């Protein structure tokens, strides 16, 4: 991706500080650090014994754990010891934008990392924008925080604080704080979509509206579910902004910059669901859907055919995965509640047990289960905020990707229609040649000639548009795929670390309980 700035080659390792990156937060631009849920502390990477990686073949060596049913262990390849300081780590650390890297002196040559396939003839000014960064490395961090209810009753809304910290020169200040409301975010997305979607840029979708959720907040329901709703939304807004600014072109859009910096923002009324604009949007969406079905495009480019299919498949599977993870969150919460309930019951049983040692052991069991229920609750949060929300985001992103493909189809369609029109006009012109009305003939001929010229220009433009959007989409898709892997990987690692923590706690609790049980005499 042309715009992703590469930090200096590691020869200058002295200047850049990689320490922070090793905490496993390197790539997922730290939105996670601001989440309110109890964040499991990432295990010290340095303490991860290299042996862990070399435990291979069919699972753990202990005899009693029987995992022999797996035909081949895909970790078998993990026999290589990879120390965290070794050069092999470099590609991860230096891969792409990272906020922890301090800005580099502008004189360093910035070369695009990705081979873009298409000839790198940048015709449009947008491409130039991507290249020209004033030597800025990508260094920006946005936090959404402090949700505060403003107003009362059905007109109330939630205001959020948006803090932008950056060293990039496109911004006026290094640190800006503004207050925004949900409709502002939607308004931003709406503007960006209208500007960039039709030329093939994947505009990250904004978080979804929720009438039910918001109503609860508006009427002042101060219960756990509304608190959760607000937190879920806050987190989603933060991820949304970070994804938007990670896009090299969108980052520089004046609307984005204004959103982040400007203290006052004109109210985006057209984003209301039931407004005139909202209804118009729905109608357009429906019309689009119908059109999509009727456009039969001759796909000459196998790449598009293939990618389109890939995204369809991915969409299907991600939705399935998302549904399963949501179910897991639900059952984990349920498990937490039921464990707490059992703990109380076990405590009661211990109270009524008249054998002293057994009574004590049962009380201990109750305590263990109580701790475990909190563990399950924490794990459910992690399941949700890490795994589930990530999947939800990507399901929506894929929809944006698909719509970009649709835009290309529309562009093609427009081009073809113009071509058809031109052809018709030419036929009319030819007919005119044989017409028998000499007085009107010259005038008509001139008119048609003008129209034809205009159409020829339009056809040429249409072709150019189509080629451009195709090129842009290729770039966007490869950027998207790259981002996706990084994103998922970083989040999955964090998620697995949360699972690790849960297991470690479980071990602690049961190890403490075991002697108590053995002490029953």
């Amino acid at each position: 991706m042309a715009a992703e700035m590469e930090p200096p080659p590691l020869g200058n390792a002295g200047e850049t500080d990689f320490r922070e990156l090793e905490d496993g937060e390197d790539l997922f631009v730290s939105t996670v650090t601001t989440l309110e849920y109890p964040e499991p502390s990432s295990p010290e990477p340095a303490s991860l014994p290299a042996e862990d990686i070399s435990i291979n073949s069919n699972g753990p060596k202990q005899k009693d754990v029987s995992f022999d049913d797996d035909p081949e262990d895909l970790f078998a390849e993990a026999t290589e010891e990879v120390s965290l300081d070794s050069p092999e780590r470099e590609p991860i650390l230096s891969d792409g934008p990272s906020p922890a890297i301090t800005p580099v002196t502008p004189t360093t040559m910035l070369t695009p990392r990705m081979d873009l396939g298409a000839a790198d003839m940048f015709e449009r000014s947008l491409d130039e924008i991507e290249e020209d960064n004033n030597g800025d490395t990508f260094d920006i961090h946005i936090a959404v925080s402090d949700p505060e209810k403003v107003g009362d009753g059905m007109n109330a809304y939630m205001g959020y604080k948006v803090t932008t910290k950056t060293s990039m020169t496109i911004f006026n200040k290094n640190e800006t704080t503004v207050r925004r409301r949900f409709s502002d975010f939607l308004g931003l997305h709406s503007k960006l979509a209208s500007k960039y979607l039709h030329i093939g840029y994947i505009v990250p979708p904004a978080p979804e509206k929720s009438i039910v959720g918001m109503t609860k907040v508006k009427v002042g329901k101060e219960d756990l579910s509304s608190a959760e709703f607000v937190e879920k939304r806050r987190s989603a807004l933060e991820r949304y902004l970070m994804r938007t600014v990670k896009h090299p072109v969108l980052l520089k859009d004046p609307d984005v910059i204004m959103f982040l910096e400007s203290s006052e923002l004109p109210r985006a009324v057209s984003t209301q669901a039931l407004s005139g604009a909202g209804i118009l949007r729905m109608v357009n969406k429906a019309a689009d859907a119908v059109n999509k079905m009727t456009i039969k495009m001759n796909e000459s480019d196998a790449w598009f055919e293939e990618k389109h299919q890939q995204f369809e498949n991915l969409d299907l599977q991600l939705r399935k995965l998302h549904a399963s993870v949501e179910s897991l969150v639900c059952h984990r919460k349920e498990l937490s509640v039921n464990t707490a309930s059992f703990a109380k019951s076990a405590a009661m049983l211990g109270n009524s047990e008249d054998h002293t040692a057994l009574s004590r052991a049962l009380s201990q069991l109750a305590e263990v289960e109580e701790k475990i229920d909190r563990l399950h609750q924490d794990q459910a949060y992690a399941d949700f905020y890490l795994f589930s929300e990530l999947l939800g985001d990507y399901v929506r992103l894929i929809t944006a990707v698909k719509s970009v493909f649709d835009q290309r189809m529309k562009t093609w369609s427009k081009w073809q229609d113009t071509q058809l029109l031109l052809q018709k006009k030419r036929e009319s012109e030819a007919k005119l040649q044989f017409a028998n009305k000499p007085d009107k003939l010259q005038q008509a001929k001139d008119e048609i000639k003008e129209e034809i010229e205009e159409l020829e220009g339009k056809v040429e433009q249409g072709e150019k548009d189509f080629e451009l959007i195709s090129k842009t989409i290729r770039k966007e898709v490869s950027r998207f795929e790259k981002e996706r892997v990084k994103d998922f990987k970083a989040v999955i690692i964090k998620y697995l670390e949360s699972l690790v923590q849960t297991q470690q706690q479980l071990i602690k609790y049961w190890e403490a309980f075991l002697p108590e049980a053995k002490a029953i005499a």
Partner: protein
Amino acid sequence: VINVDLQTDATLQVDISDALSERDKVKFTVHTKSTLPNFKQNEFSVVRQHEEFIWLHDSFVENEEYAGYIIPPAPPRPDFDASREKLQKLGEGEGSMTKEEFTKMKQELEAEYLAIFKKTVAMHEVFLCRVAAHPVLRKDLNFHVFLEYNQDLSVRGKNKREKMEDFFKNVVKSADGVLVAGVKDVDDFFEHEKTFLLEYHNRVKDASAKSDRMIRSHKSAADDINRIASTLYTLGTQDSTDVCKYWTKLFPLFSKLSKIEARVAADEDLKLADLLKYYLRESQAAKDLLYRRGRALVDYENANKALDKARAKNKDVLQAETSQQVCCQKFEKISESAKQELIDFKTRRVAAFRKNLVELAELELKHAKGNLQLLQSCLGVLKGDT
């Protein structure tokens, strides 16, 4: 196995060596090894069904001679309905899922069916072992017939009228139970036991229900993880982009994690839920014993009153004296054995809880460590990978 130390007596050893599940019944092969002279052979087997176990149990309960003992609780009826229904639904939905999914789910359901099957065998076996271990019950004639008679015992299940009679008997018993329980006992030991058992029984009932619910949630979570694994597998096989290689690495992790979680739930079920269920039934049996003793006490006291009246009127004195003596003997006999029974009950209970809680903790540890190793191993791969 819920009970401990029941197999130490070589003179009579009973176990269920085999079991067969047919349409809607289970056939247990009851295997006996004995040096007792009562049996024709030293080792023999017969086939029994659930109804015959119930018949044996009920014959103990109805036997006045055994009023002073805790009658080992009857094993619950084998219940494969839920499992069978699931298997049927799976068969119906075969068309809507991939071959891999279908095979996988079928295997899981079959495993579940097998687990339920093993449990019901264990519970029937425990019942027999408890009887065989009891100094008096093991000599029961019906028990010997049950063990040895190699024909069908022809104990039809209770018909409608008999079931109704049972129902009424229970109603009367519980009303009676309240009556009898209200009478304060002169004996501190029994007074304490009464208070203890009433409360304990209720608490065990509650704990048993709550543990069931907890374990069910656990199983659901394990199922979800399994489904996640399946989708990861599909994602991994969609194409050969870098992303897909990534999914492919995650699939085995989640697949194994789900298996471990399922095993945790199964172990909790075995060591905790089953334990609580069993002691729910045993504590009920102990309560029944107390009730019988209470009944006998009331009869004894009534007989005393009747004797006083008879003596006062000087009418039917001999009859009243005999009656009073009978009641007295009955009451004292029950009291004596009941005391020992209740002490034994406590010993058994403590031992069973100890064994199961220790095993539970050990299994939880084993599984958590297994999970941990898998996770750390996968993390190592992911982090070290470009």
